[in-house]
């Protein structure tokens, strides 16, 4: 394909909707195990660390450790939900089941398929965010209805990590490839983004690094919103997340075109 077509800015339209509906129909059949699978891990961590470590630590960042951790985990669970969907599930649809191939034989383009995957990853992120929020509220650590304002942020985090995941997916040689991204990128990002502990006491260089990462901005928005407080520098956080989402999707488009249309 010509360089101009390879790097062309993707034309987004509502044509992705049938792709999104396909994924939704599959999910509807497997929804319960899927939700449990997505939430079991973060909830066990939240309870274990929140109550166990919280008893030792006392208050952190001006609130109980459980409340502090809950804000971080709502954001990071969202990140993982979008990531797993755009890595493992998208790869199986692209490579193993050849679902993408079937779709582009219809009057659909690769960009329509990618946009459907992207919107779907954000939907899964929203579903995970809603469930986490429900558990956290039930325990009394979220202030409703103000905490519902965290949900649009959850969608934006989902779009950012869904787009990055799709870019990684375009480079994948197999499922094993994703463990590099998960262990070398996402795990350190979770450590650096203020999920488990506040960043104020860390060296300036590490704080600056954290500010370049999308999850940090998600956490900085979600945590105060759960407590019913307006986040500081909200516009900056939203702008960084939006930039990751848009830039990530453009990158995913170019890399996927290079992989499948060459």
């Amino acid at each position, binding site marked *: *394909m*010509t360089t101009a*077509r390879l790097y062309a800015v993707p034309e987004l339209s509502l044509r992705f909707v*049938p*792709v999104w*509906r*396909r994924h939704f*129909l*599959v999910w509807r*059949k*497997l929804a319960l195990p899927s939700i449990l699978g997505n939430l079991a891990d973060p909830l066990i961590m939240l309870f274990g660390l929140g109550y166990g470590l919280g008893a030792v630590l006392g208050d952190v960042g001006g609130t109980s450790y459980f409340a502090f951790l809950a804000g971080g985990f709502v954001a990071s669970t969202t990140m993982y939900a979008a990531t797993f969907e755009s890595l493992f599930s998208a790869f199986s649809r692209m490579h193993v*089941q*050849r*679902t993408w*191939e*079937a*779709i*582009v*034989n*219809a*009057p*659909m*383009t690769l960009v329509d398929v990618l946009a459907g995957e992207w919107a779907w990853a954000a939907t899964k992120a929203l579903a995970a965010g809603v469930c986490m929020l429900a558990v956290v509220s039930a325990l009394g650590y979220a202030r409703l209805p103000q905490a519902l304002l965290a949900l649009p942020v959850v969608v934006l985090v989902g779009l950012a990590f869904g787009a990055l995941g799709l870019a990684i997916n375009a480079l994948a040689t197999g499922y094993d490839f994703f463990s590099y991204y998960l262990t070398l990128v996402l795990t350190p990002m979770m450590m650096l983004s203020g999920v488990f502990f506040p960043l104020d006491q860390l060296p300036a260089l590490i704080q600056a690094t954290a500010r370049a990462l999308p999850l940090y901005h998600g956490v900085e928005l979600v945590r105060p919103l759960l407590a019913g407080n307006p986040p500081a520098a909200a516009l900056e956080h939203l702008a960084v997340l939006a930039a990751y989402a848009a830039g990530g999707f453009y990158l995913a488009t170019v890399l996927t075109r290079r992989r499948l*249309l*060459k």
Partner: protein
Amino acid sequence: MNRAALSARGLRKRYEGAEVVCGVDLEVAPGECFGLLGPNGAGKTTTLKLCLGLTDPDAGEVRLLGEPVPSRAREARARVGVVPQFDNLDPDFSVAENLVVYGRYFGQRDADIAARIPQLLEFAGLAGRAESKIQALSGGMKRRLTLARALVNEPQLVFMDEPTTGLDPQARHLIWERLRRLTQQGRTIVLTTHFMEEAERLCNRLAIMDRGRVIAEGSPRALIARHIEAQVVEVHGPGIESWVERARELALRTERAGETVFCYAHDVEPVLASLRGREELVYLHRPANLEDVFLKLTGRDLRG
């Protein structure tokens, strides 16, 4: 004004330095069943992808149902059906759900697709299987469902990439019968195959591809008449070494593949006469077919 259902001019496509399609010209008339034949790696599937606008050519032009491809490939594909080489049905869906979900990609409303499902399943020999799971279908049933799925948009032209590879004879004959019905309905079919029998039975016209080029084109009969002698005698057996010199004198052309000698001639009576009384030689006399043309033009070497 170009009235062809599909035309390709000077198509070229290069992958990682190697040219896999090297100047292909094709012209398929409306209502025709056109076959693209060739050994593995001849460039058939890449040619189909170029015709559908799924990959961009390095050079050349394609018009599919009057639309320039790839620039208006989406509009062209709206009126085209595709049966891919590899099964890509949705394993999580029932038979009916596969059709509904696929119809949505063409912008169809669920109710309209649902209304057409009985008819599509009847055509595919899957009546009453609407609620079946994909895993419960045999290979032949899956291929027929893929064919039904390709017809969900009432296409004017259907591309089929090796439609009967891996099917048993019953399943293959059923697919052939359905393809004939499609051409009777006035639809154009473009298929790739390496089964010569399939091409000979189904195709009005075909092109033989090898190493990215079309090396022969025409109706199956015309290709046989043009490229090969009418009769063949295949001979093998322990005395073959002593007899092969004789064969070269009696037949117009002979070919050797391992321990078998193929004798081609318009009149093979002298060859048959020399075989009578030679009990140690086993022979088969048959009319020449497309496979003989294919092997003559593309050679007997194994391909990738």
